[in-house]
Structure formats: structure tokens, C-alpha cells
């Protein structure tokens, strides 16, 4: 299958996505942000639709919408009790807008399904370059704030005592998350992006007990899902996001089952 350029691009893109999702996912899980990640991906859908409507690329629209909304959500989320309801409202609004923009843009339905569910065929080598650039940017920022982000994510109480600028950290992290969502949505689609940003890391936390190891394992799990998903999709012609979702969910439930039987065995 590597004789086709689009498959080579898809594998390159998938590899970048898996690495970014493995790293970011560990923080997403530690900060309890699965739900928010889901919302950001819906906002990403709306942004992509807007991008098409405005005559830009879907990725540019996505970046615009997710980054702006992540900053807004970061300010909202100060009051935790109200957060879930507020986030649901925002997400409903954005899905609605996305549908509106798509119909205004007058594109055919397959374009919409590509945004929502992802596609293998659509990825050009300039897309890959763009994703690579964004991913490197995300990685550099993470590296620069790594110890602070780690402390705040895994022990918010301790980070507060230390006087770390936790509010700033939280906004910076949301912007990074927005960038990652936009990058990853290119291949798995905005509906399923939160799978790669949450499940591999959620699985890894049952087996690895340091942040570095969790990241390593999450990256491996994401890579296995993405690579086998792409291969199976190529062989069967079924959608790639179906395979990725199924594989990652399978890993997660196996880990959960393993953990349950182990704790049960201990008494």
C-alpha cells in the first residue's frame, strides 16, 4: 500500500498524531478534561465548516475556532460546578453553527462527512508539513513548561502551595489542546478525535506509574491503533476512524478488566 502517495502521507500524518495525542492525552486524563476535549472537537467541526464557507482551508477555520474557544472556556472554568453545563451549551451552539456554515458553503455532503469522520485519501504532503509544524510548536511549549504542567496536572493542591501560576498554565494548556485537536482531526475526524486524546492515556495509566512511562505507553497504543486502522481501512475499504475507535476502546476495556480482576484478586 506504500506505493500510493496518499497512503504514505496518511501514515506520516497518523504517526505525528499518535505522538501528539499520547503526550497531550496524559495531561488530559490527569486534568480530568475528557469532556472538554470532546467539546473542543465539536467546536473544531464548526471551525472547519466555517473555514470552507469562508474559502480558507478547514484546518485554518478549525484553529481559529478551537483556540478562541479554549481561551473563553479557560476563563469560564474557574467555577467548577457550572463548568459541565456551560460546556454543553457551548458545544450545542457550535455544532449548530457548523451545520449552518456547511449548508451556507454549499459543498457536497461528502466534504462534511470527511470533516466529521476523517479521511485517509484527503491528506496531501503539504498537509503533513503543516501538521508537523504545529506539532513541533506544541512539543516545544510542552517542553518549556513541562515540570510546572506536570506538577499542576498531577497535584493541583501542591502546585497551588508552591505558588505556580496555575491559571496561566491552564489557559496555555487549553490552547495546546486546541492545536492538538485541530491537528488530529485531519485523519480521524472531529467526531472521533477525543478518542485518540483520551483512550490511550486512560489505558496507560493502569500500567505505568510515572509520567514519562505513561506517555511512552500512550504513544505506543495510539500508534498501534492508527497504523493498524490505516492498514485495515486500506484492505477493507471501511472507514479508518471505525477501526481506530474499535482498537483503542478494546485496549481500554481490556485494561479495565485486567485492573478489576487484579484488585478483586487482592481482596
Amino acid at each position, binding site marked *: 500500500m506504500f506505493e500510493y502517495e496518499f497512503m504514505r502521507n496518511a501514515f506520516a500524518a497518523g504517526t505525528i498524531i499518535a505522538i501528539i495525542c499520547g503526550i497531550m492525552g496524559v495531561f488530559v486524563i490527569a486534568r480530568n478534561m475528557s469532556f472538554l476535549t470532546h467539546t473542543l472537537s465539536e467546536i473544531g467541526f464548526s471551525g472547519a465548516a466555517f473555514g470552507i464557507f469562508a474559502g480558507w482551508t478547514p484546518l485554518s477555520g478549525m484553529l481559529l475556532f478551537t483556540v478562541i474557544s479554549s481561551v473563553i472556556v479557560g476563563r469560564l472554568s474557574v467555577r467548577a460546578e457550572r463548568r459541565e453545563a456551560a460546556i454543553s451549551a457551548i458545544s450545542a451552539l457550535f455544532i449548530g453553527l457548523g451545520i449552518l456554515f456547511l449548508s451556507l458553503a454549499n459543498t457536497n455532503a461528502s466534504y462534511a462527512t470527511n470533516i466529521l469522520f476523517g479521511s485517509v485519501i484527503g491528506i496531501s504532503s503539504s498537509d503533513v508539513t503543516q501538521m508537523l509544524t504545529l506539532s513541533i510548536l506544541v512539543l516545544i511549549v510542552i517542553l518549556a513548561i513541562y*515540570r510546572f504542567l506536570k506538577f499542576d496536572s498531577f*497535584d*493541583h493542591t501542591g502546585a497551588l502551595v*508552591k505558588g505556580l501560576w496555575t491559571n496561566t498554565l491552564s489557559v496555555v494548556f487549553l490552547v495546546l489542546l486546541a492545536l492538538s485537536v485541530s491537528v488530529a482531526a485531519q485523519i480521524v475526524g472531529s467526531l472521533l478525535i477525543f478518542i485518540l486524546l483520551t483512550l490511550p492515556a486512560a489505558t496507560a495509566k493502569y500500567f505505568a*506509574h510515572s*509520567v*514519562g512511562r505513561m506517555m511512552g505507553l500512550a504513544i505506543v497504543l495510539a500508534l498501534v491503533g492508527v497504523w493498524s486502522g490505516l492498514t485495515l481501512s486500506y484492505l477493507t475499504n471501511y472507514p479508518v476512524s471505525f477501526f481506530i475507535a474499535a482498537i483503542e476502546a478494546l485496549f481500554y476495556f481490556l485494561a479495565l478488566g485486567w485492573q478489576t480482576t487484579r484488585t478483586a484478586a487482592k481482596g
Partner: protein
Amino acid sequence: MTTTAPILKLDHLGMTFPGHPVFNDLNLTIHRGEFWSIVGENGVGKTTLMRTILHQLRPTTGRVHYLPTSSTVRIGYVPQFRNIDADYPLSIRDFVGLNLTGWKLPWLSRRERARVTDILAQTGLAQLVHRPIGQASGGEKQKAYLAQALVERPNLLILDESTASLDPVTKTELLDLVQKINQQMALTVLFVTHDIPMARRYAEQFLMLTPQGSEQGPIAQLTDQKVWHEEAQHV
């Protein structure tokens, strides 16, 4: 060990939650190397006072001063409650290492690793370094919290009922350790506790909060009558 340099000064400090005064006009000067115990019945405002000292709560009146400047005071805090559920993944070793933020690289330097190993040994956690802290017992968790607070070498340590869930032997071991650092490195300690015998054994000064006000002095003045009087009035 007490030197004369003040490290913390509470200046007419008052705290009122909406419709609910907690403490009022509290004045206190704490010197480097002193060991204070903070006592008082449940709900009287001990944790609130500690969080005000940490600048996590803004006082309604008065001020908290760090001396000589705020940048010279490094605080270690072992809070009364912490969110660590059974699923929490980090090992005790990694949890303790979280507090090392002085250096930038993602991984710990050799010196930092040695410091973590050292503090884990001192707090009696050497055998448990790889245990996920979510699965550790209540007392083991408390030890890990103390180790995390101590790993960055604070000069002001705040313990909020940090020994409440420890067995008598472990309790003594940990407080002996805190006392050792207190004496050797002039660590200032604020020890919030309901355990009057322990307060008498380790502290040099006491601050007793009561609903009416507060009282402070050398620990010898924290008499049984005083403690009983407080309890009798409110039980």
C-alpha cells in the same frame, strides 16, 4: 532552635466568610526555627488560618507578612485533605518528585534523584517507592505528602493534622524527623493538631484558637485546664 529573625508576621489578621466570622484581629510573630502548635476545636478556623498564611485565601482585614521578604520564605505544606483517588497513577517516588521544579529538563537530574531517594528513606518509604500512591494506605499517603513537602527544603513547614491517621510509632518517627530538621536547619514548623500530648512533646509555642479569640504563649502554658475548659464549654 530559635534565632531572633522573624519569618512570618500576622498583622491584625481577620477572616470572615459571608455571614460567618472565623477569626478576628489576630497578631502573631513567628521566628525562624520556632516550632508552633496550633490547637482549637473543630471548625474554629485552623485550616482557614493556614490557607490565609499561604495566600490561598485573602484575609478580610489585616495582612500576612513574609520576612525579610516574600522571596526568602519557602513553604512546605501538608494539607488536611487532598484529592488522590484509588486510580491515581503516579508512584510514591514520582509523586514526591513533582515538587522539584527548579530545573527545566523533563527528567530529574542525578542530584534531584538523590534528593528524592534521601527524603524517601528518611520518611520511611524506601520499601514503597514504586507503589502507586493511589493504592497506598492512609498513613503511607501522609508520609508521602510530608516527603513531597520536604524535598524542596522549605524553611517554613505547615502540617495540618498531618499525623492524625498515623499509628503511634510512625507518628513519633515522623515528628522526630521534623524536629531533627527543625533543630539542624532552623526549619520553622506550624503544627496544626488535636493531639495535645504530641503538641506538648514537640512544640515550643502554642496558638489556641477559640470562638472568642485566641491565646498564645510558651507550650508549658497550654495547661490541661485550658484545654478542658475549651472543650467543656462547647461539648
